């Protein structure tokens, strides 16, 4: 799995961090998403897929390997 984020779309909701805190965080200064792990381990995949789906700005793209 490969994860990418579109900072320009991100609205700083932080929903992704609530769902998958090991993969996403937010910058302190403006709340924009920070990708902690662009190739997360298998045990994170369900959480990452959910984060991509619930992101209210459609800013997370998941490419399944």
């Amino acid at each position, binding site marked *: 799995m490969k994860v990418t984020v579109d900072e320009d779309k991100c609205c*700083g909701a*932080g929903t992704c961090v609530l769902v998958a805190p090991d993969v996403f965080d937010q910058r302190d200064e*403006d*709340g924009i998403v920070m990708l902690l792990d662009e190739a997360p381990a298998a045990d994170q995949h369900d959480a990452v897929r959910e984060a991509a*789906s*619930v992101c209210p700005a459609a800013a997370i793209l998941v490419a399944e390997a």
Partner: protein
Amino acid sequence: MSLPASVLVVGASAGGLSTTEALRRKGFDGRITLLGGERHLPYDRPPLSKQVLSGAWEPDRAQLRPEPVLQALDAEFVLGDPAAGLDAASRTVRTASGRLLEADAIVIATGVRARTLPGQGELAGVHTVRTLDDAVALRAELAASRRLVVVGDGVLGAEVAATGRGLGLDVTLAGPQSVPMESQFGPWAGGLLGEFHAEHGVGLRLGTGVSGLVAESGRVSGVRLETGQELPADVVVVAIGGVPATDWLAGSGLTCENGVVCDDRCRAADGIWAVGDVARWHHRGLDAPLRLENRTNATQQGLAVASNILGADAPYSPVPYFWTDQYDAKVMVHGVVPAGAEAEVVDGDVASRRFVALFRSHGVARGVLGWNMPKQTRLHRREVADVLTPATV
């Protein structure tokens, strides 16, 4: 109830798409059909009053998912053919073109349509902003206009005013509240927002309703306030809220009162569910019926309904959340700001317009509002969540 073999989702936008994605993620391999009234593939609405209206984004950037991602869902999209009727007992939807679509489970995700002023439909130069086509049409007209009057002091009106100023228009914002977004932000933060707009040069005509539109030979020329004053305009945006899109459910037997009325599982009837702006369900934490018009709710409710379709039988009791972008400010609320709540600044500094405020009613934290501090705001969300999401099932 046995698990359904087929699901029909009516409304192909944020809520409908989220339901579909969640069904697939959870392993549902039956037939899924998404019926959409618009001809577009699912797109996102928040950018319509912001990046799309300002021209920072081309309209197709608002599309919710790239086409390969939609294809991988293995769902059938039937677009440009609105649902015209529902037979709840047989779970059959009839479309405007006469199609009959039947499924074991039906998800209603038709959102809201923009409320309009009397006579608006016959006049050129008056716009609402609900669809991508609306935003593109308004963008073209703003480019050729000088004076914009926005009718409506809620979130959409405030955003359109900000975007209009960004485009260099002369903007007036009119509405009945004493400060913009008072019902969502409360009087204190709404007051800060009003000052912010005034500093950016928006003329605020608040605290008085709008009595009607003024026209000259078929085109709007201004807005008349209840005080009798007239605000001249080249273009008018009407942002006075939404009406749940339930007309097509007349005669279906479902209860529609300010939305599709649902139980705490978001179920409207056996095998029929509602999601997003159109759904009015019973929120356990608030112990009251609730209908939310915000983006996060549409996706989260879609996820909850997908789980319940697959047998989870769990109540949906989210912490409401929305954000708005105006000028360089990103303001967000987790929970609610009840009337009369007391505000305490818990982080940052109001004067520098970077702060987090906690709102309490009778000593209980009910909402957290952040101004340009998204991460810190989220960190305070828990205080609100503990109250709103009791561990009841």
